[in-house]
């Protein structure tokens, strides 16, 4: 049965602590088809040789058919409408304002819309353009062709911890097999173990804290072997990495191979630079398949890591029981019909002091309505020789 004591504001303290976890993504998760899910929602309307593609792909930490699989991150690709890639592929604008593109290009409007969506979310302006470094005002720092990695909240929690992001990446695609008549490097799996790869990181980003009004804290992703080269941006609270394709990859590399195309044959052969030709001609799925299967490795090694932040707000309520308090219970079974304390022998009445065991602490509001209860792992004896303070912690 309850005995009440008023808790003053001096007995209540609030704190905030941060927990960190280490996140470790392995190469085969992103390169494997069983752990990378496609959502083929885009279909061209061109009869027999229609092209089907996703607008993004999701990487899982296990085979995504398993019930225990968790989504790690979404991966997609975008092109800014004012970029050279868009200009070179465009044939003009129709009367409704729709941008028109050459028949050699594919999904250009979708790529532009993806970029616009991220610009709207992270920069607050759908027409805005990402720049790396974030605070740069130089046009040459524009990110015209962006690879977006959106990490899931299960892993980022309340945000990615600054200066903990590191990612291993192959800037060039492996050469195609020489035995083939037309060697293709579009779909050659990255070597394992990794060689020829570089590391992108945000280590050092703490020295220049930047903030987007809409995207939160931003750090620059740089090349670890030359930190003066910025290759992308990391939006910490959003858990989104934006990589500049032209700087993160060897954008001048000649890509050879077959691409899905709308037309009589359904296949187009390409032998042209990664930017702008490959990114304009390939479907989103083909770009993402290429990046996922050839740029991150395919073994069981770590390709990407960061630490996350979990912020825990706590309210500490100090419930103090002085020597003369809470030594008695109002439970009816505490005393017999004559008011004597049952647990004290009749012969000891008057000499032995009353005592009680504290098992539960209830927190009430001013109207004496119960708000929360705290249970002790085991009852604690309280008598007039003890001055106890119970610290009740509410985490949320």
């Amino acid at each position: 049965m309850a005995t009440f004591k008023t808790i003053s504001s001096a007995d209540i303290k609030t704190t905030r602590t941060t927990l960190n976890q280490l996140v470790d993504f392995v190469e085969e998760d992103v390169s494997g088809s069983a752990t990378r899910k496609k959502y083929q929602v885009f279909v061209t309307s061109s009869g027999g040789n229609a092209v089907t593609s996703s607008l993004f792909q999701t990487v899982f930490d296990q085979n995504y058919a398993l019930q225990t699989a968790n989504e790690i991150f979404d991966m997609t690709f975008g092109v800014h409408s004012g970029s050279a890639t868009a200009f070179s592929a465009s044939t003009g604008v129709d009367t409704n304002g729709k941008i028109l593109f050459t028949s050699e290009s594919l999904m250009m409007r979708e790529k532009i819309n993806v970029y616009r969506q991220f610009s709207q979310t992270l920069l607050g302006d759908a027409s805005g353009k990402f720049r790396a470094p974030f605070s740069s005002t130089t046009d040459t720092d524009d990110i015209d062709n962006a690879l977006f990695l959106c990490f899931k909240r299960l892993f980022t929690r309340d945000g990615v911890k600054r200066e903990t992001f590191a990612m291993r990446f192959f800037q060039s695609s492996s050469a195609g097999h020489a035995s083939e008549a037309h060697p293709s490097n579009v779909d050659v799996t990255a070597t394992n173990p990794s060689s020829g790869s570089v590391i992108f990181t945000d280590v050092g980003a703490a020295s220049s804290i930047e903030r987007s009004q809409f995207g939160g804290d931003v750090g620059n992703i740089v090349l670890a072997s030359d930190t003066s080269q910025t290759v992308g941006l990391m939006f910490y609270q959003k858990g989104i990495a934006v990589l500049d394709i032209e700087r993160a990859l060897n954008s001048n590399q000649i890509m050879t191979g077959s691409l899905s195309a709308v037309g009589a044959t359904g296949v187009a052969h390409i032998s042209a630079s990664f930017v702008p030709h490959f990114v304009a001609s390939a479907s989103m799925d083909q770009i993402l398949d290429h990046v996922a299967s050839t740029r991150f490795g395919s073994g069981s090694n770590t390709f990407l890591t960061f630490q996350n932040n979990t912020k825990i707000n706590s309210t500490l309520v100090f419930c103090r029981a002085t020597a003369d308090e809470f030594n008695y219970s109002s439970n009816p079974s505490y005393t017999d019909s004559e008011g004597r304390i049952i647990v004290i022998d009749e012969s000891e009445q008057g000499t032995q002091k009353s005592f009680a065991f504290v098992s539960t602490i209830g927190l009430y509001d001013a109207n004496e309505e119960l708000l929360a209860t705290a249970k002790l792992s085991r009852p604690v004896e309280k008598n007039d020789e003890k001055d106890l303070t119970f610290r009740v912690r509410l985490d949320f």
Partner: protein
Amino acid sequence: MSFIKLGKRNLENVSVLLRPHVHFISSSQGAGVTGSQYVSPVRSPAIKQVIDLENASNNLADSKEDNTSDVHKLNEDNYARAVAFEIARAAARAGETNIASSLSAYLNLVDEAPKDVRFDKQIDAFRFDPPFKFTKNTTVKNVTRKTLMPYHQHKYDNCGFWYTNYNTLNFFDNEHIPTGSALLYTNPSGSYDLPNNFSVSFWINPRYSKASRDYRAGTIFHLSSSICISLVSGSSIDEFGAENEFKILLQLSQSADKAPSLIDLSTPSSAYPNDLVFTSSHVLKKNHWHNVLVTWSNSSNNSTGSIFIDSNKTDFHIPSASLNATKSPRFLCIGNYYDNSYGATMDGLVTNDPKDAGSNSINEGYLPAGVSPDRALTRGPNEFSHPLNAEIHDIRMYNKYINKNLKKYENLFEESPTSTDDLVFYVPVYFFPSSSLRDVLVTPFQRILSTTNDPFSVQYSFGVGGKMTNLENYTLDFVEMRQPRHLGLFPYTINTTVQDVTADSYTYDTGSNAKRLLSILPNDNGLHKPRYDLLEKSVMSASNMFKKSGRAIDYSIIALDNLIPTSSLYPGLVFTSGSIFDQIVGSAPDNPGVAPGAVLTIAQRTRDVSSNEITIVDISNLYYG
């Protein structure tokens, strides 16, 4: 070593769905054997612990002496990783532009980081049935029943040693289950003859369809030459290829004499005598509860009748004065179609003297109508070959036309009736603590002539630890207060020599027993509100079976507390085994082949007269909040 083939019937699966997102599976099949559940509902191998440099250094120092163990290797890796990370950060702060080597070392060691141990934390979940002897699980049951349930009763609506009196009749068949079973309600005085104005309604949930076999019309309600209502395929299948939509097939008057499976649903005949065949335009969905109403009157709406599926109506027109059979059918058949003629074959199914222990229908709980011997149990190959595959309850036949679109009838079927006014037949599927005299199973080898007032056979349960529903206590027609003949649903006994048989294995190995056992299921139809006024008005209204903890009467529950009188136990018999004990108790779970003794074995052993036909799942409240 010997090899024993374990079939489907040797395996028992239990599945408990908890919130949030925790699925506990206890199974003896394949890799499904799990007796525990992770505390963390979402776990990922990609999430690991952060060991900073200070902790890594301290841990390494602590394990320095432990030079060969994996622990030391782990601490070395942790230290190396932390050092590599700090070197990279320090270098970047110092203005160095090449930090690749230290970051590469860091990345190489990240996958060696220790997993988050919270993801490995599991809590065991236990599931058990009360034991046949006094063990700690007997105590768990007693503490739950006598202490926890009374303590928590004020918090929960339904916390007590009882279960809800809201049931369904479950009809099904498969390769192990006999098809020729049905409930036959005798019609000695013509009380069930189809009235000139009539309405038949019921709640139905088509539960069962399989891609591997053709769906056969299953009859719900059949009065020979008067009316036959069947469930037929709606020609829609789910992703597994099994039927997932169904329709109601209605045959009236002379057209009810054609087996429903012989009717061509795509082009029904319009020629006499098969001209009064109608199907609903609306469908019933698999695993959904639907209310079906068939109603007709020659004096209403120009002799236009209707088939209602919920509120969707299909009309049919029959310009006739009556749809009644020229001869009164001897029984009303529920759950199957009687495909045979009037006369001796039909009479024989419902005429017998139940006190004649040699008769067959006495086994099937049939209330007497005549004195002549009943028919042999052998039935013709097609006589009852349209078994229903669905759950049904609240079966009514009115002697009036009911237009559900009228305001006054709008909610008629959403609640149980409070009286039998205008009703000709009403089976709510309530437990009724009284039954006819019949042969009751007491061991797999013996039956005794008895009535029953319990939801299951207490002799069979407390004597040999077997499960056997008292189906007869659930099938009462509350209008005529009449029990049906449970054709093909009586408990067989073993008449050959067998060894090592347990009561439950016998029950589940015998098709008719299994079907009888599963013929009553808890009702999950939330669209219908059960009312118990008819039970309250009945002669059994004061039964202890409706008393919560022996006190307040509540007809919505079936009490499981005191199923046999404690006075039947032998207080002086302190043994729970041995020759003296065995002589007194007779048959036991471990020895069911002998005759029952003077006291029921399990009750004597445990001194517990509350139901053992329960399952206790001991699982942390982490999983259900």
